C-alpha cells in the first residue's frame, strides 16, 4: 500500500511540476512531459501492465490542464507505456543508456501519437510546420530528465537497479 501511495504521490508531483514549473521552462517552444517520463520509468521497471496504467494516469492528469480533447494524452501515454513495457522485457542486456534510450523512443512515440490521434479527432492545429521540431526537442528534453527521474521513480517504487526490474518483470 505504501508503495502505491508513494507512486500516486510521485505522479501527482510530476503532473504539478509539468503544469506549474516546466510549462515555463520551454526550449524553443517545446517543454518536457514529466508525467510521461515517470510513466516510462514505471514501464521500464515493471513491464507493460504497469506501464499502461501509469501512462493512463499520467495522461489523465495532464489532460485536466490542456485544451486538446480530454483523454487524448491518456490514450497516447497508455499505448506508449505499454509498448515501452514490452520492449524493456525484450532487452537482452541492460546498459547505462537503456533507460534514456527507451525514454527517447517513448517520448517520440507519445508525442507522435498525441499529434496523429488529435488530428484524426479533429484538432487541426496540432500538425504544422513546427510539429516535428517540437516533438524532437521535447523528446531530447525528456531524455535528459530521464537521467534524474528514472532513479527517483525506482526509489519511490521500491525496486532497485536492473535486477529489481527483471525480478518484477518475471512476476507479471
Amino acid at each position: 500500500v505504501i508503495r502505491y501511495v508513494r507512486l500516486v504521490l510521485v505522479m501527482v508531483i510530476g503532473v504539478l511540476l509539468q503544469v506549474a514549473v516546466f510549462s515555463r521552462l520551454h526550449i524553443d517552444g517545446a517543454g518536457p512531459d514529466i508525467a510521461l517520463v515517470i510513466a516510462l520509468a514505471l514501464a521500464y521497471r515493471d513491464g507493460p501492465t504497469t506501464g499502461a496504467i501509469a501512462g493512463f494516469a499520467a495522461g489523465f492528469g495532464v489532460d485536466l490542464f490542456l485544451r486538446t480533447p480530454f483523454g487524448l494524452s491518456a490514450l497516447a501515454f497508455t499505448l506508449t507505456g505499454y509498448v515501452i513495457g514490452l520492449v524493456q522485457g525484450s532487452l537482452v542486456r541492460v546498459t547505462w543508456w537503456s533507460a534514456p534510450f527507451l525514454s527517447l523512443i517513448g517520448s517520440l512515440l507519445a508525442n507522435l501519437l498525441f499529434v496523429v490521434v488529435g488530428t484524426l479527432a479533429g484538432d487541426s492545429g496540432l500538425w504544422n510546420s513546427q510539429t516535428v521540431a517540437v516533438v524532437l526537442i521535447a523528446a531530447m528534453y525528456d531524455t535528459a530528465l530521464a537521467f534524474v527521474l528514472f532513479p527517483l521513480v525506482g526509489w519511490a517504487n521500491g525496486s532497485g537497479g536492473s535486477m529489481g526490474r527483471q525480478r518484477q518483470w518475471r512476476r507479471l
Partner: protein
Amino acid sequence: VIARPSNRQRYVLALLLLTSITFITLDQRGAGHSAISPVRNAARDAVAPVDRWVGDELRPVTEWFRGIGRSGTLQSENTKLRQELADERGKLAAAQAVLDQNKILNELLHIPFVGSIKTIGAPVINTTPDNFSSTLILGVGSADGVQKDNPVVVPAGLVGRVDSVTAHTATVVLLDDADSSVGVRLVPAAALPSTTTTTTTTAGTSTSSSTTSTSTTTSTTPSSSSVVTTTAPILVTPPVYGVADGVPGSTTLTLRQVDVKTVVTVGELVVTSGQDLGRSPGDIPVGRIISIKREPGQLSSTIHVKPLVDFAHLQFVRVMLWIPSKLPS
C-alpha cells in the same frame, strides 16, 4: 524479439484505451461537457495558487530559458536596444514634465480603444502546459466577471479572446493560435486624413494629439515608443474587410477573404472590424501587414500580418468585460 503479451496485459491495455477513446468521444461531441468541464475547472483552480507562486519565484529562470535557442536574435536585438536606449535617454529629460500629466490621463483613460466598455486588469500566470497551442492563463476568472469570448487587450492592441473560464482563472487563446480567427478591417494610410494623424515618439511614454470632432482610435506600441493615432477615416473607397487567422507553428497571422480587387500595401494597419458575428468590438488594433505574396495564376494573395502585441513577454493584460449580446447596435 518483443515478448508476447499475456491475455491479462492485453485486457488491461484494451480497457484503458477504450476508456480514453470514450473520454475523447464524449469531449468532442460536447456530451461530456457538463461532466468534464467542472473537473478540468476544479483542477485548474486548485493549481492556480501554486502556479502564481511559481511564476513569481521563477521569473528570472523562465526569462533565461526563453533566451535558449534565440541567442543570435537576442544579440542583434541587444545591440539595437542599446542604441535605442541611448536615444531614449536623451529624450527622457524633456519628457519628464509630460510624464506626470500623462500618468493622470492614463489612469482616466486606461486603454484608448476600449472606450466605454468595462475592463478588468489581469496578471498573466502561465501558459498552457502543452507544446501545441498558443494560450495564456490569467489570474482572473468568472468570480471577477470574466466570461468566455471576452476580448483581451493591452495598450498595443488585441491579445486574443477568453476561451474558457474557471472561478479564478481564464484561458486566453492568443491571436497566433491555430484556433484563433478574428474579423478585421484594413486601415489604408491614404484613407487617414493627414491633419488628424500625429505620430509622436517619446521616451517610454506616448502623447498624441488629434484635432477633430470625430471619434478617435489610438494604438500605442510601447516597445517602439511610438503612437499612431488614426481617426475614423473619411472613406473615399469602401472599407476593406477580411479575416485574420492564426497560423499553426507561426507567430504571424494570415488574412483571408480580402476582396481580390483590393490594393493592399505593406505596413497597413489592421484593426478589428466588429463584424465577425460580434466576436470583438471594432477598431482594436491587431497588427500590421508585413508581406503580400501574389502567386501567378492565383485569384487571391497571401497576406501576412504581424501582431502588434509581443505575446512572449506579457505580464499584465486587460480583459474587456464585453460579450456579443451586449454589443451596442
